[in-house]
């Protein structure tokens, strides 16, 4: 009885007792979710266009951020550092296309997935070899103050991240819908062979999409890096993007955003109101269990394409 109480009554009483605090938890969770979404976005882009489940996205975030902060520490102005980093990420995309994807064309998904793990190892080694393993603080002038809505405290930096994420999604959406390249990308995503047959060069598309993912990784890296300092743990957040992906569906950009928000808000609310009952640190698995529960009802994720199987 007491357990049931703690599970089903007390948390809700607490929520109604201090609605401002609930607001704060919710916004905090949503903002954390935005960060997950940013990582998930990189995954989705690549999965859509090349069917590759890119495990290296997390390391790409780290790699981009390391280059960016390393250049800035070396005295390169911010804008230039950003441009150089983007150039590096494009070069990485070229290399991946040439040396990994092209030789592995037509292989099974799991093989490509493994190959991206290889890429992750390689990039991590290169990044740390060049820039070292120190934690590097990153300051790009993101406002870092708080303001209050009623009693609820909101971080400006979180809000900024949300704005950046929104902006990024709008830019990507415009890019996909109104540019020639973007349309080609969508064509490839819809049907590789049809796209090939009307003369879309698949290899170029892959380079472009990996470059765009590299760009998203850089933005993500800057957002996370200015929050936590640029460090190894940036590559680990990639794991948290996985439940976001299965929740939203591997192929949907809105799915990545909505999935991120649901996961972020869900796990924060769960940890604050139900964590005590379970002994804390349920954030470790909550996102995965939540995603698993969703999958029971929609095996392809919220916005994923319906899986049709034929014999």
């Amino acid at each position, binding site marked *: 009885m007491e357990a049931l109480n703690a599970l089903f009554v007390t948390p809700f009483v607490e929520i109604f007792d201090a609605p401002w605090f609930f607001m704060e938890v919710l916004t905090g969770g949503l903002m954390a979710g935005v960060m997950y979404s940013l990582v998930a976005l990189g995954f989705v882009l690549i999965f859509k266009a090349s069917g590759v489940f890119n495990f290296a996205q997390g390391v790409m975030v780290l790699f981009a951020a390391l280059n960016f902060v390393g250049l800035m520490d070396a005295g390169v102005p911010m804008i230039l550092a950003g441009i150089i980093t983007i150039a590096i990420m494009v070069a990485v995309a070229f290399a991946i296309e040439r040396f990994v994807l092209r*030789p592995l064309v037509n292989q099974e998904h799991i093989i490509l997935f493994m190959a991206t793990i290889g890429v992750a190892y390689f990039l991590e080694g290169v990044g740390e070899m060049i820039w070292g393993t120190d934690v590097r603080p990153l300051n790009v002038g993101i406002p870092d103050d708080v303001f209050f809505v009623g009693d609820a405290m909101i971080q400006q930096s979180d809000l900024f991240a949300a704005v950046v994420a929104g902006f990024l999604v709008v830019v990507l959406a415009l890019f996909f819908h109104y540019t020639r390249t973007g349309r080609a990308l969508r064509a490839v995503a819809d049907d590789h062979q049809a796209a090939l047959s009307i003369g879309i060069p698949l290899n170029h598309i892959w380079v472009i999409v990996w470059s765009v993912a590299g760009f998203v990784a850089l933005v993500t890296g800057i957002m996370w890096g200015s929050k936590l300092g640029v460090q190894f743990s940036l590559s680990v957040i990639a794991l948290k993007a996985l439940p976001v992906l299965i929740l939203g569906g591997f192929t949907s950009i809105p799915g990545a955003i909505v999935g991120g928000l649901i996961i972020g808000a869900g796990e924060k609310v769960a940890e604050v109101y139900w964590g005590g009952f379970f002994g804390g640190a349920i954030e470790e698995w909550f996102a995965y269990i939540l995603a698993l529960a969703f999958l029971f009802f929609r095996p392809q994720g919220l916005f994923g394409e319906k899986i049709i199987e034929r014999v």
Partner: protein
Amino acid sequence: MIYREAGEFKTSYAADQGLLTIPMDRWFVIGLVLFAFIGMPLVGDEYWLGSIMIPVLILAIAAMGLNILTGYAGQLSLGTGAFMAAGAYMAYKVATNLSFLPVPVAILAGGGFSAMIGVLFGIPSLRIKGFYLAVATLAAQFFLLWLFTHVDWFVNYNLSGVPAIADYHLFVDWGPLVTGAQASVEARYLFVLVFAVFLALAARNMARCKIGRSWMAIRDMDIAAEIIGIRPLHTKLSAFAISSFYCGVAGALWAFCFINNVEPGAYEIERSFQILFMIIIGGLGSILGSFLGAAFIFLLPITLSQLPGWLGLDVPADVITHLEFMVMGVLIIFFLIVEPHGLARLWQIAKEKLRRWPFPY
């Protein structure tokens, strides 16, 4: 010329159904097992047996487990580490609380517990497929480890949370010590080897009888398999159960015979990935590949880290590790490009070559 399969005639059904029908194969494998049992303890020193062979064999058992699930039944799993942990914690519980049971039974009990957990987390596989399932198994990975570290019952309310494994004899009070630091490294090695050989034999036989064939049917196309009368529920869950059993035994052996305590850090997500690497590099759907992959993935970083020393170069430890990461990454990609079916396939090719040598056509 060297390797021949021609000229062998079977005269009975039993011979036709033998595990290794070609005498050369048979003698080679028997010789290898004999060498592992007799030669290796004689020539190997403590370093080779204790910190190379034991972990490689244990990881090979776990890799066989994952290979049954992923290689044979086609269900991608990233929760191997957690199933290993389940085995380790339960084996510890059985060994300490039911101390009249000999330690091999405790380890098998750990495997059994792990199998039950595996079935539980295998249920989603009936509805979820591919990478979606892989991420779902991550739920098992994180949830189970959290559970074992949060429920003090699993560690006998130990204050430090990392219970040490006592020195156990093979059969309660009888026989040589097989676990703990006091046990001789040869005893521990042979103990692990017996598990590895029997489990490999069992896996090999399972793979070629009805249950293995139904796994492969499900892997190749589950709807088609269902139509020809294979029950997906039964098949998938049996794959999860047996796979987890192997992983559980491996986890228990890791704790009992290698690191001498039950430490959650040994079963984290990195372990799951490591074992996945092993079966991909070794060869999906191959028992031999599990062993080759385990040896390769475990030894590669160690070899790389020692290479400059052998060559007499003085390279700082961190640079070596960074290089190790890069080489590891490149090698994984290289292997996937050159031989996506893994080391086991290379072994096959080598046999083909030997058959034709010295007159290739």
